[in-house]
């Protein structure tokens, strides 16, 4: 990338710099060994110069909006519109959740074009496929999310909200399909057709489950369910984002920067293959994939990671799947700054961490952001914490002036070198996963788990032995901890929701419900047998119209499709 003259000059200058640096180093480093590396273990030099990136062809970096999109998906960055605020909202009853949604909107929470974007998380009971009245929901109703599981409860949540002007993200786990069906049925009851609906389904059957010990469907069923959802939305919901490739979960489980990239790209490849097998064209569905990426503490590595991800994804989709549209190659990122890096000790320090992480995400050129509250290590965010997190996004977007220039860090010798390194390492790991037969195989045989676990162990050993600093935990500890108010959902939540559940189930049309559920069971059995005529999702919507709940649909699905108590094997 540089002419020989420049490289010569660089070498000379570097030599003289190195002499001076070494002299100073001797004063500080007694045995002459000074080691620095990134959090993922890539060795770092104290200085990067043109020589370090001379080998990179210029068009690998290029300009924003051009393949391989290293500097950004689009020709414009944040010039006209910053990223979307997408804090995660979900607390207890639909009413309480709605109150928080309204509050944050008042405080300036905005999506694209000034539209309302709501990023809603369901509660533990619903995630597990249970309704409030089920015994297994005990202690989990309204916890860590909203207790919404049926058309009537959605009615309370979305009352008066214009659904065609609103982006609704449904954060679900295994109950993605039933919840989508219920949302569609609800929207229909308000006069909206599927092609008007805007929003996201997580479709996390793959990427969530590979990294967590949650109970789930068998991996191959997960694969089929995920692609069936994509089929349905591609044909019926042009404004809907079908799949969220959950890098964040992988990072939170312990994966390092390039492992996060490699695993989600492999997952994406697996889903893409299945959709292609079903007869869809990559350009039909790839534009509606999204990514959720963690933003951790290693400031530059995390930025380089995102740029590397853009390159890897673009090249993969172009070269392997023959994608032609630029949108099929874009990595549309919702950033979730890292929760695992936040501490329960001295929680206000988390405000500082999340601000730096948020800045890093903005400098990487992401499309949306969720910043956890400073109380993340202790509870779901209080109103104060949620507001402050929103303010972080607002300060970065409106006070720092960084939005005036696209990819301001582009061309940094260090950053471009690190981007290239991470791309290489991610690609190597992708090849290893592909060698084993792809993502599903590597999930089933425990390989991906072992990779993530090994990094998790390294990190924990480093922090336990204080080799890696965590302020407040292994350094600068305080005897008297600061007490902060912890948010708790209303104590009556469980009772209210159970009452509702009983009431709705008692008062719905039993005949129509029974008929719809019998049909759904037939379709599930058919689906399991591999006879897919794409009638499964319509059958779920029909059930939702008859007021079937998410728990009821999930119970049928568990019985028919099989259910694993844990997505991953025990540690070894």
């Amino acid at each position, binding site marked *: 990338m540089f002419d020989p003259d420049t490289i010569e000059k660089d070498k000379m200058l570097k030599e003289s710099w190195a002499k001076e640096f070494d002299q100073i180093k001797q004063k500080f480093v007694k045995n002459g060994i000074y080691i620095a590396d990134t959090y993922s273990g890539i060795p770092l030099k104290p200085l990067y110069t043109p020589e370090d990136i001379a080998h990179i062809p210029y068009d690998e970096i290029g300009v924003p909006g051009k393949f391989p999109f290293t500097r950004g998906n689009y020709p414009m960055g944040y010039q006209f519109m910053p990223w979307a605020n997408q804090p995660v909202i979900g607390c207890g009853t639909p009413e309480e959740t709605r109150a928080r949604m309204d509050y944050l909107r008042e405080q300036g929470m905005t999506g694209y074009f000034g539209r309302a974007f709501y990023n809603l998380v369901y509660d*533990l*009971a619903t*995630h*597990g496929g249970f309704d409030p009245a089920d*015994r*297994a929901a*005990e*202690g*989990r109703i309204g*916890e*860590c999310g909203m207790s919404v599981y049926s058309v009537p409860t959605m009615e309370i949540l979305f009352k008066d909200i214009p659904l065609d002007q609103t982006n609704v993200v449904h954060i679900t*786990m295994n109950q993605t399909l039933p919840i989508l069906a219920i949302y569609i049925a609800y929207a229909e009851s308000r006069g909206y057709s599927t092609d008007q609906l805007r929003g996201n389904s997580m479709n996390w059957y793959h990427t*969530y489950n590979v990294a*967590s*010990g*949650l*109970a789930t469907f068998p991996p191959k069923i997960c694969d089929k369910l995920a692609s069936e959802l994509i089929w349905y939305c591609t044909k019926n919901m042009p404004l809907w984002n079908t799949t969220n490739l959950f890098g964040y*979960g992988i990072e*939170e*489980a*312990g994966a390092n920067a390039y492992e996060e990239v490699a695993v989600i790209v492999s997952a994406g490849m697996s889903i893409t293959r299945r959709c292609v097998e079903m007869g869809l064209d990559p350009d039909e569905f790839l534009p509606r994939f999204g990514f959720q990426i963690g933003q951790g503490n290693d400031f530059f590595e995390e930025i380089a990671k995102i740029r590397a991800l853009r390159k890897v994804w673009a090249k993969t989709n172009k070269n392997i799947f023959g994608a032609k549209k630029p949108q099929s190659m874009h990595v549309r990122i919702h950033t979730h700054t890292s929760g*695992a890096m936040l*501490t*329960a*000790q001295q929680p206000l320090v988390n405000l500082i961490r999340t601000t730096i992480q948020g800045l890093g995400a903005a400098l990487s050129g992401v499309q949306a952001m969720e910043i956890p509250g400073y109380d993340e*290590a*202790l*509870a779901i965010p209080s109103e104060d914490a949620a507001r402050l997190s929103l303010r972080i996004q607002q300060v970065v977007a409106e006070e720092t002036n960084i939005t005036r220039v696209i990819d301001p860090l582009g061309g940094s010798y260090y950053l471009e070198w690190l981007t290239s390194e991470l791309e290489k390492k991610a690609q190597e790991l992708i090849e290893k996963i592909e060698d084993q037969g792809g993502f599903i195989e590597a999930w089933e045989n425990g390989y991906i788990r072992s990779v993530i*676990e090994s990094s*998790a*162990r390294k990190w*924990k050993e480093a922090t*336990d032995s204080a080799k890696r600093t*965590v302020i407040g*935990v*292994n350094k600068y500890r305080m005897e008297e901890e600061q*007490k902060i108010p*912890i948010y*708790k959902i209303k104590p009556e939540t469980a009772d209210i929701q159970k009452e509702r559940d009983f009431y709705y189930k008692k008062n719905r049309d039993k005949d129509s419900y029974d008929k719809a559920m019998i049909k759904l069971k037939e379709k599930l059995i058919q689906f399991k047998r591999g006879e897919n005529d794409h009638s499964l999702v319509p059958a779920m919507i029909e059930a939702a119209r008859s007021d079937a709940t998410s728990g009821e649909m999930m119970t049928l699905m568990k019985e028919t499709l099989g259910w694993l*108590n*844990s997505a*991953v094997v*025990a*540690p*070894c």
Partner: protein
Amino acid sequence: MEKKTVRILMTKAEQDCHDRGVRYITTKLREAGFEVIYTNFLYPEEIVNTAVQEDVDVIGLSSSTLGHIPVLRDVKDGLKKEGLDDILIILGGVVPDDDREKLSELGIDALFGPGTTAGEVIDYIKAKNI
């Protein structure tokens, strides 16, 4: 006579996705010479049944998404019925400060919150001289 190997049950709710900590502690417990039965549960009685069948000395519950108080209550009751009141019960994960009193009342022996090192857990169990 052989010295008894301490058996520990490490478990968490199957709806709780946070398992990074409990997995790490489990491998470290093995390195410290313990036998660790690693499993999960949907209902509290599974914990009791498992503890009885496996004749464990310690039950470690990992909870990062709340719901642990009713579970621990049921587990304590169940163990009492089996005459297994003396099993050590420890709780790990994210637990609100407010719960400490309730946990104490329930007779939960120890709480290992975020930032706990594996060494702390191992030392605690070893000190109990089971």
